């Protein structure tokens, strides 16, 4: 085990996989950073420092710095994937999927199905998502609910450096298109990461990070840490929370959620995306359908409000679900009837 930052887990996993398999290639805006400038290539190494050093190690054929052309980046990833390569395309900010959505949604996601299962499409699309930097409405969104709703895509949301390692490796070796969502506010998070170059976490397997008998809290990404903090606080009062880190929202580990709710009878879903047609509403509906008899209180979701993301500090912190709001939700389901 080595201690490593979330962002370093990204770059080291990519490097290990590029070493192992020469078909793995990277592309994206500024992933080299400094191309065509006096400072020379690698002046930057990716705006999130998640590709630092790759160009020097693997060269221009395998680490492709692109113009600002998201549609072409995603389309090129599709073409590379159909031609036997394993592209890892970086979409700087998740918000920019708007520009490239057709290539992701109608192309990448649908090839396997439309081509009668006769093709593989091993592309990974990495993007930084999430609020917390006062980057306002066009640079702060959590987009997983849109992408999770698209058949043909796998959607991964790691919440620790170790999970980055295990899930990104699985993503790169997966033969289907995988959306890999990195939370900007987690890039600096440090944690133990297994050294094993074969360390992989299968998709669709949630992780129980806190165990308790009274309430099930489901989350992932940045907000998982908030949920853990609430669970730890309430544990001191004798309230037990199961905290479930989904890790992947497509496929989703229904079994882990249902098993937990069977015991606790109470469900809270904490989700960074807006409430309507969200991951939270989907999970609440699933539990209502499949574990209705076990429920002692209505399932509750904690989301931001149904608004674009505001800029000012006060507004953004009011927008994001907080530990206070999560704690209030736990108390609410506990006080039901």
């Amino acid at each position, binding site marked *: 085990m080595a201690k490593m930052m979330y962002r370093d887990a990204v770059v080291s996993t990519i490097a290990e996989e590029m070493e192992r398999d020469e078909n793995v290639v990277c592309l994206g805006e500024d992933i080299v950073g400094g*191309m065509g*400038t006096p400072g020379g290539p690698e002046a930057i190494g990716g705006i999130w420092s998640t590709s630092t050093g790759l160009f020097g190690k693997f060269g221009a054929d395998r680490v492709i*710095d692109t113009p600002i052309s998201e549609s072409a980046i995603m389309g090129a990833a599709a073409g590379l994937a159909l031609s036997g390569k394993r592209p890892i395309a970086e979409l700087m900010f998740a918000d920019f999927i708007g520009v490239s959505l057709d290539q992701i949604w109608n192309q990448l996601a649908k090839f396997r199905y439309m081509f009668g299962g006769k093709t593989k499409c091993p592309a990974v699309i990495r993007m930084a998502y999430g609020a917390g930097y*006062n980057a*306002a409405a066009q640079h702060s969104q959590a987009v997983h609910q849109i992408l999770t709703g698209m058949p043909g895509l796998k959607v991964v949301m790691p919440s620790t450096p170790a999970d980055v390692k295990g899930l990104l490796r699985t993503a790169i070796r997966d033969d289907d298109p995988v959306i890999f969502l990195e939370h900007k506010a987690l890039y600096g998070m440090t944690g133990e990461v297994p050294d094993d170059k074969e360390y992989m976490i299968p998709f669709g397997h949630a992780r129980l990070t806190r165990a308790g008998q009274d309430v099930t809290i489901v989350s992932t990404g940045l907000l998982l840490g908030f949920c853990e903090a609430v669970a730890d606080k309430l544990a001191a009062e004798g309230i037990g929370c199961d905290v479930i880190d989904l890790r992947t929202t497509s496929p989703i580990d229904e079994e882990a959620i249902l098993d937990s709710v069977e015991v606790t009878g109470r469900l809270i879903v904490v989700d960074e995306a807006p409430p309507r047609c969200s991951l939270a509403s989907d999970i609440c509906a699933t539990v209502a359908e499949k574990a209705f008899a076990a429920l002692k209180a209505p399932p509750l979701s904690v989301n931001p409000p149904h*608004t674009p993301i505001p*800029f*000012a500090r006060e507004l953004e912190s*009011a927008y994001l679900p907080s530990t206070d709001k999560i704690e209030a939700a736990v108390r609410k389901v506990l006080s039901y009837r």
Partner: protein
Amino acid sequence: MQLSREALLRAYRQMKVIREFEERLHVDIQTGEIAGFTHLYCGQEAVAVGVCEHLSVEDKIVSTHRGHGHCLAKGCDVNGMMKEIWGSREGLCKGKGGSMHIADVDKGMLGANGIVGAGSPIGVGAGIACKIDGKGHVAITFSGDGACNQGTTFEAMNMAVVTKAATIFVFENNHYSEHTGFEYAVGTQKDIASRAEAFGMKVWRGDGTDFFSVFETMREVLEYVRVPGNGPAAVEFDTERFFGHFEGDPQRYRGPGELDRIREFRDCLKNFRKSVTDAGVLEHADLDALDTEVLAEIEESVRQAKAADRPTAEDVLTDVYISY
């Protein structure tokens, strides 16, 4: 020099306001009081002002993530802008947009934009509206050299030609898109204007560090586009950005001495001062007086921004179509 004394003083003042507004932001950002991403326009003032000095409030502009200069040149209120960037509820957009999303539609300023390349199609729409209204008004979209690589820009250029929109694509080539060089990212390795030419547009080119070059070029471009039926045009200005891509950018992609050189030889304010004083139309003292006035104005805007009301949690839910 065909401009009147008043026009020259006004142009200089406008450029100076942008310069000092941003130099001040650059300082205040270091204290951590200003949140979010800020992209400074310093160095490119001659373009915003040289373009907007020709426009009336009915003419529209569409801006970029580097939008402060365009906003100020188009007449957005200095105090409202400063308050917005400081995140106050008294800001131009109530603290909801911040630096990257300032707009003031009443002033014909249709928005800065956090999405690179998103402006061009919007500019085409506004340009079609101008054409329909038939009053000789135009819509102008500012884009960087990086944005010219977006599909949206290509689509917008073609659609502008097809619809004969009264629209102008103003490309500000500052040689960098974020940290990537123009020579690398623009495949023609030549210029941006020639791309517009390929779409069948009449194009112009000018020196974006020289106010007079921008102003005179834009006079011609506007004369052309304001004629009903002529349709769109494009213009490329070669310019410089004095600060990093965003505030906090260490600028490792720059060459040694590059910033000093451009500040010395490619500063539109210095160049302006030299031209007008060499020509004997204005005295240094005239400009110095304006400098003092502008500094006081910026100081006052910061004072107001610091004192202004902060937004509260309830404000998150206003101005949205529906709240659940």
